[in-house]
């Protein structure tokens, strides 16, 4: 669906996106993660033909971009860096204008498609108030409606749940899963890890312009080879498993270096009560924090840590501007 090869973007001296090989497959719910300023937005803008790559290739739906943008973009619904609309017009008028822009929006079906899109995002009852009176959540929903209006094959969404309350987030998540089941590929960027954890099937992590991880979420969350044991008899359990316990947190023990079945057998044999038992899985948060550095919104004094000094050395300095408005 989306393939990039050595995609690179340089803004003057700043390397915003560095040799990225993205691979989003048909039917994926792809979560694109990274700290602020890591190049997420720049990459999304390149996919949509807003920013031109310095080098490398983009292929979407099997066609080169941005050369064949006129064929590719009509099949894409996008939300980039927050929704925007003409504040003095109503939500419906805004959707009608954006639909009439460009070639593909057929006028005969416009009214129906607008009504359907508004219904989907939970704005079916909006009146003719101008958009400038909308709340942040309503604007976000309107932006989603604009993205859905032409029944896209691919949704490219930048922070789609921004500004929504917990119920709204749940609604959007259910909507995206439903659309995905009906055949729409979803590519969303986010720094809400729980969001991605609950919604996505694959993730890519970008840090300082480089794609550092790209994998199925199931694989990433695979077992670590250690086991978690929850027990009321902590002291006895530690004694039974002497030497194997890595960490004790309250009534939970992290046990390593022997397989889970053996651990279980020993505990039971010693008459230790076990209330919960299972393999330790990597959390997405641990993974992301492990592979990324601090975002560009954190500014440490120069030379404070070796990592940022090294980053300056290879051209991706702390002044990186991938997420700027």
């Amino acid at each position, binding site marked *: 669906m989306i393939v990039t090869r050595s995609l690179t973007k340089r803004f003057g001296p700043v390397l915003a996106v560095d040799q990225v090989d993205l691979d989003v497959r048909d039917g994926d719910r792809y979560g694109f993660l990274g700290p602020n300023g890591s190049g997420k937005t720049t990459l999304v803008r390149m996919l949509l033909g807003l920013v031109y790559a310095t080098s490398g290739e983009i292929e979407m739906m099997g066609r080169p971009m941005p050369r064949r943008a006129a064929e590719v973009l009509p099949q894409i619904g*996008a939300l980039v*860096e927050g929704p925007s609309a003409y504040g*003095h017009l109503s939500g419906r008028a805004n959707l009608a204008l954006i639909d009439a*822009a460009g070639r593909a929006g057929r006028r005969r079906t416009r009214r129906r498609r607008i009504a359907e899109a508004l219904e989907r995002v939970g704005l079916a009852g909006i009146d003719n108030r101008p958009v400038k009176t909308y709340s942040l959540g309503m604007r976000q929903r309107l932006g989603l409606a604009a993205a859905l209006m032409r029944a896209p094959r691919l949704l490219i969404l930048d922070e789609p749940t921004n500004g929504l309350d917990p119920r709204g987030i749940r609604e959007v998540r259910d909507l995206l899963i439903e659309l995905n089941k009906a055949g729409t590929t979803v590519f969303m960027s986010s720094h809400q890890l729980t969001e991605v954890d609950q919604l996505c099937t694959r993730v890519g992590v970008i840090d300082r312009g480089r794609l550092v991880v790209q994998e199925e979420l199931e694989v990433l969350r695979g077992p670590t080879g250690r086991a978690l044991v929850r027990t009321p008899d902590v002291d006895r359990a530690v004694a039974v498993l002497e030497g194997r316990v890595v960490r004790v947190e309250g009534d939970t023990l992290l046990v390593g270096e022997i397989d889970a079945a053996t651990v279980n057998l020993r505990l039971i044999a010693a008459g230790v009560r076990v209330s919960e038992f299972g393999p330790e899985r990597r959390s997405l948060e641990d993974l992301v924090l492990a592979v990324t550095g601090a975002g560009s919104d954190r500014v440490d004094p120069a030379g404070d840590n070796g990592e940022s000094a090294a980053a300056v050395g290879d051209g991706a300095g702390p002044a990186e501007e991938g997420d700027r408005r």
Partner: protein
Amino acid sequence: MIRVELVKLARRPRSWVSLALLCGLPVLVAVFVSVTHLAPPPGQGPALLSAVLSSGSLYPAAALAIVLPIFLPVAVAVVAGDSIAGEAGSGTLRYLLARPVGRTRLLVAKLVALVAYVLVAVVLVAVTAYATGTLLFGSQPATVSPSGLGTSSVAATSLSGGGLTPAEIAVRTAGAIAFIGVSMLGVGAIALFLSTITDSALGAALGALAALITSEVLVTLGAAASVNPYLPTRYWLAWVDFFRQPILWRNIDRGFAVQGIYVAVFLAAAWAHFATKDITS
């Protein structure tokens, strides 16, 4: 896309307020002049205003002379400056381009909307001025002489001959409208170019006005005589030559040529810049 841009322009309250102000000023002036019967003496004040007391049918031309120095360029610069920068500032530019709307198409649509606005503005000023003029000053045939014109010498009625028929005035007013329209398009092209460079609509409009003021200053400056013929405002007032008898084509032709060059150069620059620009707004 052109239709979309026209709808956007028409549904924007600002467009109508600016048109109302443009038409309101000449009406205000006409009311004062007709009440007091104190037209500025020939050679002072806006061109042709001294002649309107004799015939209201000349008032459209006088009205254009009133709005031309400041009001009209400001209105055009604001609309043109807003065209791309305004979309960028409100964040809608990225959604338009991702729709997709081709960049060249968008620019052309903005230009057509701008031309429409300029034409509507100039024609509307002329029409309201004609209505006010004939209402307040009557519509007897005009006697136009160079003395009625701000720039030329005194009492030379015999040199240029007598009156203009209403049909002649209509044709000449149309010519003046076309000339002023093209001059304003020159302003619009500069503002449109700046609009592709900055994300601030205000910045683009003010930039274009700064260019005009610079030009106005240089036009009157003897030391800048070498660049004088190429300044955008150099021939702005040449349209009054339509009301001479016979029409003095020399400066009118040059005015058209200079504006044509400005329009072509700045539109080409706007296109070249916008088509290759990274949209980061």
